[in-house]
């Protein structure tokens, strides 16, 4: 048995993780390793099981079978939650609070002090480009700005693992590029950024990707390797090829 240093512990280790909602198998035996210090893209169309996987990893829903370890803790990973930043797909900020108040709430809930909250709020709001609106009620912001507030709340405590569910929807290309630059900064500092998306061209920027389809993992690895394996020029085509292959009966 080897003793791993914290940096060697995988961000996420999923073993046969399954989730059933009645007759629907939302996630089927997901076995997957997300190493530390990478941008990891969880790809697939709506209903592929991306959000279910994230909710399982956060302990927000219980698995029907299998298990997972998040930052070394078996799910539900309650004691490492302060080291995780989560941005749900729905804009999960209070619209009847100001941007500042939202960030302060989530800062307090993960145990940040008042000073740290103040310092980091300024930093992350600059990053997501809504610093000028920090004292405004979220209800007065545009949809894109609300998403950016939600992202800022996830980034506030400088977490080791970021779970971002569709973070770039409704974000203009310039800002999207800025986000990716920031994600790179984070991974350079050893942080792990897991992003779900159904934009394949965006996924191509990830260090590694996993392709999900109807709850099943079709392929995972670096984007280049997946393209090579499927003899395709982009991830879109790779995905389609993999879906076709999965449908064909095995000889």
């Amino acid at each position, binding site marked *: 048995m080897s003793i791993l240093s914290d940096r060697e512990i995988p961000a996420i280790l999923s073993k046969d993780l399954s989730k059933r909602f009645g007759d629907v198998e939302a996630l089927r035996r997901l076995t997957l390793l997300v190493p530390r210090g990478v941008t990891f893209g969880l790809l697939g169309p709506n209903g592929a099981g991306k959000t279910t996987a994230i*909710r399982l990893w*956060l*302990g*927000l*829903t*219980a698995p029907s079978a299998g298990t997972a370890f998040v930052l070394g803790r078996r799910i*539900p990973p*309650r*004691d490492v*939650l*302060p080291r*995780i930043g*989560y941005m*749900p797909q*729905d804009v*999960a900020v*209070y*619209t*009847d*609070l*100001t941007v500042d*108040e939202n960030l*302060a*709430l*989530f800062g*307090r*809930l*993960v*145990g940040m002090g008042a000073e740290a909250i103040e310092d980091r709020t300024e930093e992350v709001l600059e990053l997501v480009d809504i610093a000028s609106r920090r004292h405004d*009620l979220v209800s007065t912001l545009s949809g894109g700005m609300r998403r950016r507030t939600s992202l800022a709340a996830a980034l506030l405590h400088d977490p080791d693992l970021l779970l971002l569910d569709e973070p770039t929807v409704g974000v203009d290309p310039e800002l999207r590029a800025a986000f990716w630059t920031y994600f790179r900064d984070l991974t350079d500092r050893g942080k792990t950024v897991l992003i779900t998306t159904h934009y394949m061209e965006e996924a191509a920027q990830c260090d590694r990707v996993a392709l999900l389809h109807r709850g099943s993992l079709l392929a995972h690895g670096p984007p280049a390797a997946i393209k090579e394996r499927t003899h395709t020029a982009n991830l879109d085509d790779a995905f389609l090829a993999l879906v076709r292959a999965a449908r064909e009966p095995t000889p």
Partner: protein
Amino acid sequence: MNPRRIAAVARKSLSQFRHDRRTLGFVVGMPLLMVIAFGYTFGGSVHDVRTLVVNEDLGPMAARFMGNITGDTLSLTSYPDVASARAEVVAGRAWAVLSFPQNFSQQLLARNAVVDVLLDGSSPPITSAVLASLRAAAEQAFAGAGGAALSLSPDYVYGSSSTRFIDSFAPGVIALAVLMVTTIFSVIVIVREKTGGMLERLFSTPLAPVELVLGHAAALSLVAVLQSAVVLGAAILLFQIQIVGSVPLAFGILLLFAVGNQGLGIVASAASRNELQAVQFIPLVLFPSLLLTGVFYPLEAIPGGLRPLSWFVPMTYANDALHSVMLRGWGVGDVGLDLVVLAAYAGLSLLAAAVFIRRQA
């Protein structure tokens, strides 16, 4: 459990109130409106009060007196003797007994006549209507001739001369105002988090369900303090409600009741999928509290079969405690049982709320 996280939730919750002017207006305006509405609604006139007359006067003056009792306030019935008439009042079958002594006419001429009026004083508007009606009759019958020579001597089987209807009624209405507003707020509070996806977002942090419940309860309790102060203040200032006992004790009872209602509201909220489902719990709480607890009708007036139900409605204990403190001047020890039940209600409902809200969907 971390007090900082609890405080964080409480603070966030109060900020949300602060940003919503209309809600803030509701917090203050709604209880005020209820107190005023009830206060005026029950200012209506009294009629057909069953009054027994024992007339032993050998002269004509008692008959003349009664001939001048006009209007529909009193419904007069002759009775042979005072003892049996009194028994009717004790049994609640009549509100008053007028008795004229044998020498009433002589006394009146000698300018020192007394009419004994025996009253059930438990309903002050009836008491005052009876007395006013009799005074008017005396004035009319003997104007100039010796109105001042006739005096009424009231004696009370129940209640006293200084009890007004609004006084006897106020404790229940005050508790009702607090019940309504606290229930309406708390029943919305968790379902609101759920519908916006906020509950999952909150539970992606180390926040525990019990911390969430206590945070909300802490914020709502401050709102309840404000509401209780508004209701009690309005009752005292606008309607000069008598509080024989301790005002702080009355306030404490209201607050304890409010916290219990919030716990119950949070449970209902946790059990609801959306706001519409949640608000349906309101009448469910309200109607038993309105009808089974002695707020509008005395507990004794509830049909026997339904009576045990009232023991399970917390309002029964809040109403009883407030009534005893405000009208009878009872202290903490005297309303001890009510306080224990209300404290248990608050504790259990908050506990149930914490258990009901699960981290995992």
